[in-house]
Structure formats: C-alpha cells, structure tokens
C-alpha cells in the first residue's frame, strides 16, 4: 500500500535524521493503524539504523549523529514495546546484555554510547550504570540470564578490575556461561586477550558487531 510504504520510508528517514519526536509519532501511528509491527521494524526502523551504521563507517556521520540516531531508534522501539509483550514471537531480539562501568570508575559516556547502540540494534540491554561492583555484574547476569557482559573502564587504574571480574567468573564456575566484552579508552585488543576476555570493541559500532558475532545465533524474526 502506498501510504504504508510512505510511512515506512518516513520511519527510516526519522532514524537517519535522528528526529526522535518524528520516530515516536510514527511508531504511535503504526500502533494506531494496527500495522504489521514486524514489517514496521524490519522495513521501517531497522533500515534507518543500518543506513546510519553505513554513514558512520563511510566517515560521513560522526558520533553526535550516530548517538542521536541510536537514541531515536530506542525511543521508537519503546513506543512499540507494549504491543510486543502481547505478541507471541520475539521480533526484535538479538540477545541479552548486562553492561556497566566497572568498580572504582564513574565515567560512563563511552559505556552509554555502547549501551545505546546495542539497544538500537536489537539487544536487550540492562545498564547497571557506573562504579558497578564486580559481584553486581555477576548477579545481574545470572538473574537476567544474560548472554553477554560488557565492561567499560576509562581509567588505567580501574581497567584492572576487568581482569578481576573474569577471575571472579572463573572462581564461581560461571566463565563459560557469559561472553565478556571489554572496552574503554585505555583498553586494547591485547589487554582483552591478556585477561581472557571474549572480545574488545574499539568503538560502539565495533562493539555491536562483536556482540552480534558472539551473541546467541538468533536471527531477527
């Protein structure tokens, strides 16, 4: 239908433009018009965030565009969310993530960016915030049945706690249960390998790709 097509194109455009108000209004309209929500997500919003990813990778979009589009995507999904609670199929789920800035560190900008991008790309994200005690990560991951634990650190001093968390998982016999991704300014691929993490993302988009790769192999419905 021509009008549905136009609506879907508008959703894509809203995400690309980072126009949150428009994205929310379009999501609400989709609900009001009782559109097929799978189609709304797959052909409306997701192409938008995919295009944003491309623009970022081509060097046309920088972080402010990336993050505002991701926030826009999240806002639209939040509008659609209640309708999914009733729906039998999981339309937009790539896995569960527990994320936080590690104990001793209260810097959370990078972590917020990754959380936002993960969520915009279909992950169920539990953001524990900053200065998160090591045990809290594990409790939350166990409690939610998370697939991935993402650890951020900005300080060279606190990144050492990333190692401790992995040790703690081992001590509790839980290391195999969760994939652990690390990130943050002082963190490197080598550090991730040294401490036995499952992966390192140098930026938010790399983190998303990694999470998709390492997460459960559930495809979008």
């Amino acid at each position, binding site marked *: 239908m021509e009008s549905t097509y136009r609506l879907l194109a508008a959703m894509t455009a809203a995400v690309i433009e980072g126009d949150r108000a428009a994205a929310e209004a379009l999501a609400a309209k989709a609900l009001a018009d009782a559109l097929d929500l799978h189609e709304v997500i797959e052909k409306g919003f997701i192409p938008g965030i995919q295009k944003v990813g491309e623009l970022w990778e081509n060097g046309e979009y920088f*972080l402010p565009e990336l993050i505002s589009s991701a926030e826009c995507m999240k806002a639209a999904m939040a509008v659609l969310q209640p309708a999914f609670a009733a729906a039998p199929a999981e339309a937009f789920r790539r896995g569960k993530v527990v994320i936080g800035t590690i104990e*001793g560190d*209260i*810097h959370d900008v990078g972590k917020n960016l990754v959380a936002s991008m993960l969520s915009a790309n279909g992950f169920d994200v539990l953001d524990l915030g900053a*200065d998160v005690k090591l045990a809290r990560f594990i409790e939350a991951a166990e409690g939610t049945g998370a697939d991935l634990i993402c650890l951020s650190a900005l300080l060279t*001093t606190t990144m050492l706690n990333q190692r401790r968390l992995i040790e703690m998982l081992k001590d509790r016999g839980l290391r195999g249960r969760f994939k652990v991704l690390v990130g943050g300014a*002082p963190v490197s691929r080598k550090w991730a390998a040294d401490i036995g993490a499952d992966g390192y993302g140098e930026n938010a988009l790399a983190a998303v790709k990694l999470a998709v790769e390492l997460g459960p192999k559930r495809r979008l419905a």
Partner: protein
Amino acid sequence: MIRTLRPKAELLSRPFVEKIIDEAVLLLGRHGVFVENAEARTLFKEAGMPTDETSFKVLINRKLIEDSLEATPLTVRLYDRAGEKEYVIGHDEVHFDPGSAAVKILDHATQQERPPLTADLVRLARLTESCENLHFQSTALIASDVPEIIADSYRLFVGLQFCSKPIVTGLFRTAGFRPMFEMLAAVRGGAEELRRKPLAVFDACPSPPLKWSHLTAQSLIDCARAGIPSELISMGLTGATSPVTLAGTLVQHVAENLAGLVICQLARRGAPVIFGGSPAGFDMRKGTTPMGAIETMMIDMAYAQIGKYLKLPTHAYMGLSDAKINDSQAGLETGMGAILAALAGINVVSGAGMMDFESTQSLEKLLIDNEICGMAYRLIGGIAQRDEPLALRLFEGLGPESQFLTLPHTRKWYRVEHMFPELADRDTYEAWVGQGRTSMAERAHNRLERILSETSSNLVESALQKELQAIMRNDARDNGTDVLPGLPIG
C-alpha cells in the same frame, strides 16, 4: 637598560574570563556537584551547604567559593629530595614534568607498545634526573610486574630512589595515601618537615561532568591535612562529557576545579592547591581524546588564564602527542603544546614523553621533549638588552672583512643568547649521512643508552633506602603480597 619583556599569550578578554567564572559559580550554586565521599559531604554540610544524602548532590554558594579562594595560597613551593632546591609554582614560572600514569611504553627496539616493567620505571626516573629542562619527575609509568593493588605506592617508591626531583604523583586507592605519605615523610625526616617543604604533588581528577569520586575527594582531604599540594585535574571532553563549545567546557572545568578547591580548604584552611586539568577536544569521528589537538591546547591556555585571574598556581597536560611512534606528529604536537604552555605561563606542564592519548610513555620521546622544553624556556627568556648601545660600537672597529666571529663580544654572549640542542639535527647533509643518516628518535635512543650506561648518581642513602623498603614491604604485605620485583640497587 630596558627590562626584558616576558613573552606571553592570552586567549580570553577580561570580561570573558569574568563571565566564565560567574557562570561556573552559578552552576555550582544551582546545579551543584556530585560528591561521592561522605567525609567531604559532611564538610560541606558543616559549612552550611545544602547536601543531599541520597543523590550525593551538594550545592556550593558564591560566598563559600570566594572565601575558599581567599584562603588558597598564591604559590606552592616544592623542594627536591635533599630539601635544598626550591621551586616556586605560581606567577609565570614554568616547570615541565613527564606525563604521568602511562600503562604502556613504546619499545624502541620493536617500535611497538608493550606493558612497562619495573626496570622501565627505573630507567625513566634516571633519565628524568638527567633532563635539565624537566624540573619535576612524575610517577609516569605503571609497572605491570607489580601487583595492581600496590601500583600507586610502588611508583613513588621507585621514583624517590632514582630521581632527586620533586615528584608529581597520585592515588589509585584511598589506602594508598598512608604508605605514600610515610615514604615522603621518611625522605624529609618527619611529617612537619614534609609540610614545611613539600616534596610531592598529588593529582586528583574529578569525573566530568561535575562529579568528585570517593577516592579523589579523599585524596584532596588527606593531602590538605598533610600539607601536600593537590593538583586538580578536571578533564571534560568537549561534546561528550562537557559542552561542545570551548567556552562551555571552560565553565564546567572552572566549576569542577572550584568544587575541588573548596573541599581542600574545608579540610584544612590554607591548603596548597594547583588549578590544573587534562581536558580534551573530543574527536567526534574516532571517539578519542586528542591531547595534541589545537582546541585542547586552547582550552588549557584559557583555564590557566582563569586560574591566574583567580590568583592560583596553574597546571596543564601539554607538550604531549597522540602519535604512536616518534614521528612528525609527535614532534609538532609536543612542540606546539610546550611553547603555548610556556607562553601562557602555566606553572606545571605535564606531558614530556607521553603519546597515544596519555596512555604510552616513550623514553626516547622524553629526551626529545626535554629539548623541546629547553627551546620553550629560551623563548620565554625573551630578548634582552645586553649592551648599551645595543650594537653601534661593534661596528666601529669592524674592518672590510666584516665578520663578528672573532669579536670578544661574540664569545661573551653566544652561549647565553643561543641554546645548542643535543638531538635536533643541525649537521650538513654530508655530515648527517656520514653519521649514519639517523632520525631524531634514533639519536635520542643513542643518548639514552649513553646516559643509562653511566653509574646512577644521586641515589638515596642506604638508611633511607631501607626505610622506604620497609614501608613498601609493609604496604605489600598488608595487601597480601610478599614478592616485589628486585631493583637494580642493593
């Protein structure tokens, strides 16, 4: 004789300085600051400031800020290990020191970054001792062969033994203060002596925006009470953790530093404080924090100007680079930063040796940067009137051969007026080829080998060394470890 002009650079007009301060004060009064540390919140509460024990939000009024500024000393004095050489931090004095707390070192042989070892920390301290333009040392590397829990005190332990210069350091844990204080007091021969002649500066970094963590606020309180100067290292990232405009970031920077300064003065009135920082013009393409960005340097120069207006000693992370090897970028960013910092009259300039977004030290770069700092000193030395008249008489006896090489006047002044770099290449092409076509980094490495092959001089005497070792061992034992890497001295 005409007085020599001290070359200076300022970026802000006076009304702009006052506007930024005014907004910062309003920000602290209306929005307030997040203070995670209970003791610091109690200090604020006792001073009559509204504090919220749930949100940890503290509002600071103008009067308390003005009163705290009033109480803060105009200058800070540091003394070398022997307690003899005095360094004034204040006015337009400039002191360079190595950029601190790198988690990696650039290995010259492999040209790759690797985790630093205790041996690297010793080498860095010894090289710093040899760098005449680095007035202070800093705990510039985090040795990876030392248990993480004692990494802060251990850096100080090594620095104090292998370098006699005052030291810029900081805490990684609240419990680190005691052993570190004990080491400093041991060098001085007592807590009162240390208060009288400070040997170290402790860096404390608020978390942008407007947060003082438990550890950093505790560091301010403990240092204030011990008479150890605190260096406030606000570090907003434009558009990420602070407003994207340079002026907007300056408002936040000043507010964060003022909040820290108030904590220091509430802990002990008259506590020495340095108005510093490590902000960066955040790169929106890469999500990185370039210290070599010109905007970063502009923010540094501007907040330092504001610090001076507030009659405070100043500090900045300048004269460093984001390059990964000692290439043109390393030189140009470091050179620009050191020169601009010197022109801005920033009192403590931390950065020498540092690259890769404050994460990596290069010992070769440290030596190159020492030379850059020498050039900066020469620049701010200015152009002096040496003679009266300046030159007229020199031409009187000048024969037809018209040269100045043989004049006593030339011999008298050439070494004073001109500096002679050790590492910059000033050879003819043929001479350069003849000496192996070396790059500056290679020449720096050769010099490094030469310096390190000489016997360490100016080490601590053995009684003090034993005392420092005992403090370090106790700290290690308190933290469940007995094994420390051996140091290359008895």
